[in-house]
């Protein structure tokens, strides 16, 4: 809560498009095996939670990952953190391939990659004081601080807008928003370069959500952090991200700069997702045209062939069920995986067909 000035400027934040690539993910896959049998386990299938995802994040940038539940956004985040072992693909952090490095080699790197968890109630140990929770990273990484761990922790509490006197209190004494701040303080302790935030505000009340969103932005400016924000709330993602990736059933379907994605969404799924968000303006109620998707997201155990969205898509044609559309850059920095994109240049369909090997 350091800079409370409010300005409605539409210019991109500095270092949004420049800066080095900090994290690069290519062809990332995670298949969870489904087994049968009590003694001899045999694999009968696989839940393809993430099935080929590519993106990169530049230093100082915020990448938002959105999608409905079961689209694989959380699994992607956990693989970046190496909390899950990827089935296939590559994760490169600062030019170093960390896809399959061992726990021991990974440990020093954890200083640079940290995570903010969704649920502030279950991600803090109820038996530890705030001081012990926020100070744990220093002990685990045996980091020497200038004037002791206690001083460092109190500074961190101050940075996230908590009172340094809260050092000796327990998590149950705090409200949800304050607990999320404790979690953020712990995340910041070792000055990480990359923070993966998995639904950082979805468990909080509306007024508290705004406080935490503002805090995340302030911290980014102050410490030059890079975020990967995973959320299902499109308006929150729009507010904090520089680039946004939309996921559906384990695939990235659209990846673009914030402004391009929200102003000219190209993938029909993105269009439908945005039209489904309720708008807090009663006068827009009648004139709004809403795209009503039918049914639910199919099971990732047995996803539809080719384009995974074709079963719910209103533009789907025969080709959508036969040939998988590749990710094609249809506008500068705007990649889409669709045979019949919306809001696209006129030659888009030919370019997609060429890339898919159809023309």
């Amino acid at each position, binding site marked *: 809560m350091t800079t*409370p*000035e*409010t*300005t*409605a*400027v*539409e210019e991109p934040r500095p270092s949004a498009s420049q800066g080095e690539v900090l994290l690069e993910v290519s062809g990332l896959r995670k298949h969870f095996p489904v087994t049968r049998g009590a003694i001899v386990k045999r694999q009968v299938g696989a839940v393809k939670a993430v099935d080929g995802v590519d993106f990169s994040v530049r230093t100082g940038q915020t990448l938002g990952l959105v999608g*409905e*539940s079961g689209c694989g956004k959380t699994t992607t985040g956990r693989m970046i953190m190496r909390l899950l072992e990827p089935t296939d693909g590559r994760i490169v952090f600062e030019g170093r391939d960390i896809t399959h490095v061992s726990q021991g080699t990974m440990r020093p790197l954890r200083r640079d990659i940290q995570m903010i968890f969704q649920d502030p109630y279950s991600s803090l140990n109820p038996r530890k004081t705030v001081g012990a929770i926020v100070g744990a990273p220093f002990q685990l990484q045996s980091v020497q601080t200038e004037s002791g761990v206690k001083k460092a922790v109190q500074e961190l509490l101050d940075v996230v807008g908590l009172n340094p006197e809260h050092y000796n209190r327990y998590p149950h004494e705090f*409200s949800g*928003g*304050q607990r999320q701040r404790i979690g953020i303080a712990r995340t910041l302790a070792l000055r990480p370069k990359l923070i993966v935030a998995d639904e950082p505000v979805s468990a909080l*009340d*509306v*007024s*508290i*959500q*705004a*406080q935490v*969103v*503002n805090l995340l*932005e302030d911290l980014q400016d102050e410490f030059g952090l890079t975020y990967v924000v995973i959320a*299902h709330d*499109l*308006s*929150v993602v*729009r*507010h904090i991200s520089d680039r946004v990736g939309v996921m559906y059933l384990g695939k990235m379907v659209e990846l673009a700069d*914030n402004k391009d994605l*929200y102003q000219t969404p190209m993938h029909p799924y993105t269009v*439908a*997702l*945005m*039209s*489904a*968000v*309720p*708008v*807090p*303006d*009663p*006068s*827009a*109620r009648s004139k709004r045209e*809403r795209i*009503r*998707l039918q*049914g*639910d*997201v199919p099971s990732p155990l047995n996803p539809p062939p080719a384009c995974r969205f074709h079963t719910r898509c209103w533009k789907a044609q025969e080709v959508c069920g036969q040939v998988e559309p590749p990710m094609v850059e249809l506008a500068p920095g705007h990649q889409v995986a669709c045979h019949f994109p919306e809001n696209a240049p006129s030659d888009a369909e030919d370019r997609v067909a060429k890339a898919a090997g159809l023309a």
Partner: protein
Amino acid sequence: MTEKESQETISVQAPKAFLEVRDLQIHFPTDDGLVKSVDGLSFGLERGRTLGIVGESGSGKSVTSLGLLGLHNRKNARVSGEIWLDGQEIVGSTPDQVRRMRGRKMSMIFQDPLSSMHPFYTIGAQIIEAYRIHNDVSKQVARKHAVEMLDRVGIPQPDKRVDDYPHQFSGGMRQRAMIAMALSCDPELLIADEPTTALDVTVQAQILDLIRDLQKEFNSAVIIITHDLGVVAELSDDILVMYGGRCVEYGAVEDIFHAPEHPYTWGLLGSMPRLDRDRTERLLPIKGSPPSLINVPQGCAFSPRCAFAELNEGRSETERPELREIAPGHRVACHLDREDRQRLWNEEIRPKL
């Protein structure tokens, strides 16, 4: 609503409105002190209209809805005030009388469809049970009705899915089945407590459309309780904003969104990132966090978090503002002068949203 005050002083008669709540208080005595979850709430609702109740967690919205259904245990909840539903008073009725109204006259859609359905019984059995309690029909007829209801709410292959268990349904389908159950006896009052909070946006849009269509069909009164201002803007005719167990602002949906007069409502509107506007550089959160209901701040409950409390020369901290009618159908509980409020909204708040 204008004659309400005079009416109250004269007699305690059945009101004209379909649902009328008068000075509802729901208090829970605990070891730590008295929790005043709902502290003097009054509102009315007609058939075919939708009321949206918004507020943060702990503002008393869910307790209100359980109170309307008479679901509080009288042993540990002190309920006072009056709730009139179609000429019948609920607070003073015996549990048996209320039970007969529940399901038939009023029913509820709960937030989490997984934990509010019995995992041991099929979806069909649970709908049939509710229907047979209120209607003297055979099992076959009730089953046919259950299949019809599932079809109505858009469950594919309802004749097969009626024998499925709740865990075999996806989240959106479970919520549809909940709605089918709630509507199986054509209730005149439907209370939806956070009906879409656990759902994805595309499914949420389907459920909201469904509630709207069904309301048109049955002409029932609907109360929708949520913290999502987008949802109430889509569905409601009137909005009641709750804070600390009391109503702080009540009005038509256009008034609340286009000319709100309570600083808390401004705060809620400013906290939300919006897709329909240009991106603002910063959100405008409300400082602090919601009060504990054991220890509600003196005077105006919102005063410690209010940016304009000091304009009232100390009255905010000592005197509780009453809900006053400032325009037809628009009531606000705030000490600020009306001109000041309108000036602040037009000059300071609205340009930043």
